[in-house]
């Protein structure tokens, strides 16, 4: 746990707030969030600036409110039945905003969760492409990488699972029509693709991290603006929600320690 000198805000708490920002401004869409910081971010957004956001129970239901991490199923207020077959209806309708994890992510926003090494005979078989190809061309997608390193931020991913900007453009208008990679949030900072050719840009560093730290941990030429802001502070309300309501056992600080 890294305490910044004057606030006591941990790195994991900056990450949670950065993940919450992913959901700003989308109105009534289904939030899906994988990993602890994204799960907390979606809940924070729902309880503060994105009250129409629709959360899931991680199984087959939509839930009212924003239950704490690990809430007992019997304590959830169910809103709607959302089995997997219906999840695809939501994906394909575009009414979804998602934070997936990435074993590898590259400069143009391709993500890999399929395999390390050549797909035909991988060095390491991972879980598989899952819904990443479909998610990325159907609705806004962001990524969470809790272990930013040259092994996770790579020049080119080994297997394009989630589709980045250059690959979508090459595939044509049907691929780009609903495609948006909004943010990549890592344990070091926040990244976007707000550059003329949609390559990854450093949008903010988490307090306690330097631009050089980020560059040293990134395996490609990151676009770095002249002035790189700090990731915003959590508000007092957000800190209270994180620490006393959503995650009193601090599982966030076990996912991200520095």
């Amino acid at each position, binding site marked *: 746990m890294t305490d910044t000198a004057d606030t006591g805000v941990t790195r994991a708490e900056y990450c949670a707030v950065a993940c919450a920002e992913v959901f700003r401004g989308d109105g009534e869409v289904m939030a899906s969030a994988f990993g602890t910081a994204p799960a907390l971010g979606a809940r924070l957004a729902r309880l503060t600036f994105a009250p129409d956001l629709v959360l899931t129970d991680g199984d087959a239901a939509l839930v009212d409110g924003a239950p704490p991490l690990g809430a007992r199923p019997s304590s959830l207020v169910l809103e709607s039945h959302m*089995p997997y077959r219906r999840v695809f209806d939501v994906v394909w309708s575009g009414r979804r905003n998602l934070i997936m994890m990435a074993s590898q992510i590259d400069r143009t926003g391709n993500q890999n969760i399929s395999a390390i090494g050549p797909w035909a005979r991988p060095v390491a078989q991972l879980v598989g492409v899952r819904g990443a190809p479909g998610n990325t*061309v159907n609705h806004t997608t962001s990524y969470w990488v809790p272990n930013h390193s040259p092994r996770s931020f790579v020049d080119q991913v080994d297997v394009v699972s989630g589709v980045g900007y250059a690959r979508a453009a090459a595939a044509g208008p*049907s*691929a780009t029509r609903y495609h948006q990679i909004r943010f990549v949030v890592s344990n070091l900072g926040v990244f976007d693709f707000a550059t003329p050719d949609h390559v990854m840009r450093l949008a903010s560093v988490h307090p306690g991290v330097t631009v050089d730290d980020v560059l040293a941990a990134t395996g490609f030429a990151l676009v770095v603006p002249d002035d790189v802001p700090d990731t915003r502070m959590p508000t007092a309300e957000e800190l209270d929600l994180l620490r006393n309501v959503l995650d009193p056992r601090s599982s966030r600080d076990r996912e991200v320690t520095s």
Partner: protein
Amino acid sequence: MADKRTTLDEFVGELKSGMTLGIGGWGSRRKPMAAVRAILRSDLTGLTVVSYGGPDVGLLCAAGKVAKVVYGFVTLDSIPTDPHFKAARQSGAVEAMEVDEGMFYLGLLAASQRIPFLPTRSGLGSDVLVVNPTLRTVRSPYDDDEELVAMPALRLDAAVVHVNRADAAGSGQVLGPDPFFDELFLGAADRRFVTTERIVATEQLAEEGPIQTMCISRLLTDAVIETPGGAHFTACVPDYGRDEGFQKEYVAAAGDPDAWAAFRERFLAVDEDGYQAATREAADERAAAKAAKEGA
């Protein structure tokens, strides 16, 4: 109504080496594991397994039953990957067709509808189209001019799914929150098998759960097999959750040839009754070990 009750042995007897087999469930949830174990005991080989993959895929790969896996993922849910599937892919022991999990759904749906493909945006721009060079795109015949992936029908020679309740005529009932894609696996297959925790009288189904839980009609089934605990060690709520302790044992054993030989001897070289008895005994051993540790 026809009585479709049969046995695991008859199920295996209807399969042939080289067949394409669809397996219902999702990840490590409501998998027809008793049916998978029956295949493990057989001399079948060269299967193409089509699955929202979990330990069904891993076990069949470990036993050398598989020529090819068609999947969007293979996961144990609480453990991200299956060790045997990983090993099979990394050694090149199995062929693979890896597609987006929504494309997979459309492949089953197309097969159920007896049409050659269904169009989808999913897959465009990704390596799914690169690593599966036989996949094609299709241009919309209307004014929009969209070019979409033509997901081919995933036609199955046989499919097997596991449900909470069924009647002897093959109507199936899923009491848990998600019916997954079981209906489509059956719809896509030539020979259709349902295993179930319990066969009940038809009039009993309405007492077990509301009409929405009766999601598999007998139009979709050729045979029904009662296999209590038949999804173990995957989850089969509300009858039972995933046996996390046993799943961990499965993963730990996979990492070491001697441990795997012992695991196979104890749990897989026995019939289904033997498996159920051995896993209950293993659960007791884990509970005793835990109690001893806490007492120490």
